[in-house]
């Protein structure tokens, strides 16, 4: 059986995005991108791309509860996955920390720092951002 070798370099490259939601903003058309895009789909070569750190607050657009996950996420099932629209505009895919069945379309969420997954017992731990419902 093929074993998965560590994906450390690929994960490491995305740490600023996973830990701190660092994306990009095109100053030419004022659109925000997360995950970051180096090529603005509106302006392409006329874009003026700069780094932007998202606040992390947003709204749930749609969601599901995953009961059958891949090996890396085995211990965490069931867990909620959602497409969240960040306040600044772009949408991302992320987990929502809440009991299954309590995530609702339109819910407001804020970011928290959690373990995203582990490469088994001996591999690295992937940390990153999940979301939690904002109370009240």
């Amino acid at each position, binding site marked *: 059986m093929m074993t998965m070798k560590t994906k450390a370099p690929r994960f490491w490259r995305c740490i600023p995005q996973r830990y701190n939601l660092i994306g990009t903003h095109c100053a030419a058309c004022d659109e925000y991108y997360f995950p970051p895009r180096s090529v603005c789909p509106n302006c392409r070569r006329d874009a003026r791309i700069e780094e932007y750190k998202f606040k992390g607050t947003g709204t749930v657009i*749609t*969601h599901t509860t995953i009961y059958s996950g*891949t090996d890396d996420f085995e211990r965490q099932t069931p867990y909620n996955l959602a497409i969240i629209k960040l306040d600044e505009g772009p949408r991302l895919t992320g987990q929502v920390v809440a009991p299954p069945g309590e995530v609702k379309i339109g819910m407001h969420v804020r970011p928290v720092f959690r373990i995203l997954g582990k490469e088994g017992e001996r591999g690295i731990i992937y940390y990153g951002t999940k979301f939690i419902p904002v109370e009240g």
Partner: protein
Amino acid sequence: MRPVSIIGIGCTKFGERWDSSLRDLVAETGIMAIEDAHVSGEEIDALYVGNMSAGRFVEQEHIGALIADCAGLSRLHIPSTRVEAACASGGLALRQALLAVASGHQDIVIAAGVEKMTDVSSGAAADALAAAADREWECFFGATFPALYAMMARLHMRRYGTTQEELAEVAVKNHHHGSMNPLAQYRMEVTVDDVLSSPMVADPLHVLDCSPISDGAAAVVLAPAEKASRYAEVPIRIIGSAQASDTLALHDRRDLTTLDATVHAARKAYDQAGITPSQIDLAEVHDCFTIAEILAIEDLGFFEKGAGGRAIEDGLTTLDGPLPINTSGGLKACGHPVGATGIKQAYEIALQLRGEAGSRQVDDAEIGLAHNVGGSGGTAIVHILSR
């Protein structure tokens, strides 16, 4: 660009083919198609094969060379190309083969598709399939492939009132069709209750809302239309072929309940064929999950956006209905060996148009459509076939 026809077709039984390797499946289908086309090996100008992930399933790449070799054609040194577009790899192979013939560059070209998925654990297979999604920004954050379609389903249900029962009806219909298809992975019927009480995979999709992991291969032989009747009694013309792309990640799409790639590819294909959706007699659409079939019949222009669920409920897409969808059993019941599906769809339409579909024959089938999607909609390929 000259017109192109299908002069031969072949398809293996889909399912858990423990005794057959990837190579065995390729050889099996290749021989079927070549014999059906009455061509000789020397006449073949090129091979195209759709295969998503042999590297991860059987640790084998260089599939182009492999299929030429398996087909015994290596000594003829014909060009052989593997194409990949995730679950649309088969449709893409058909399109590339079509372009090779239509352009006048080559005459007899085979388009094949193959996937051997059961040589790894189902966990590893699911992980390989997840590569059709956005690995960095969907999967690393915890998304699975069913989860992405589940999120589309939830929004469709919220916006248009589609129900879990309507989703289940898709599976019921496709299993019913599959029960009449000797090549289908699953020959048994299921009820709405069966679907709804099967374990939940990603809410609201249950196990029986999801297409299975399968092995299988299919192949079609193409020739310029003007030469087609030398080989085939009933050549089937390809009157429309189009391909479109969209963002890789679901969260970047314009509208989470529409596959714009399908809409664009379909529009171009109808234009080329000079027809409207209402002229399609039957279609094979990409039902990797039950919701995907509902989205497909809307995005292909058969029903209004949001009306797909009701159409299923009203029986409009069953074998005896006005627009039979997925008479092969679809991906759901016939099986989904990823790279093979797009070619199997062409096989099924061609079979129907030739009048050779046996108990699942659609009466007076003149024009059929095949719709193949990659990932959650990053690629869509539409072909329109006609007698």
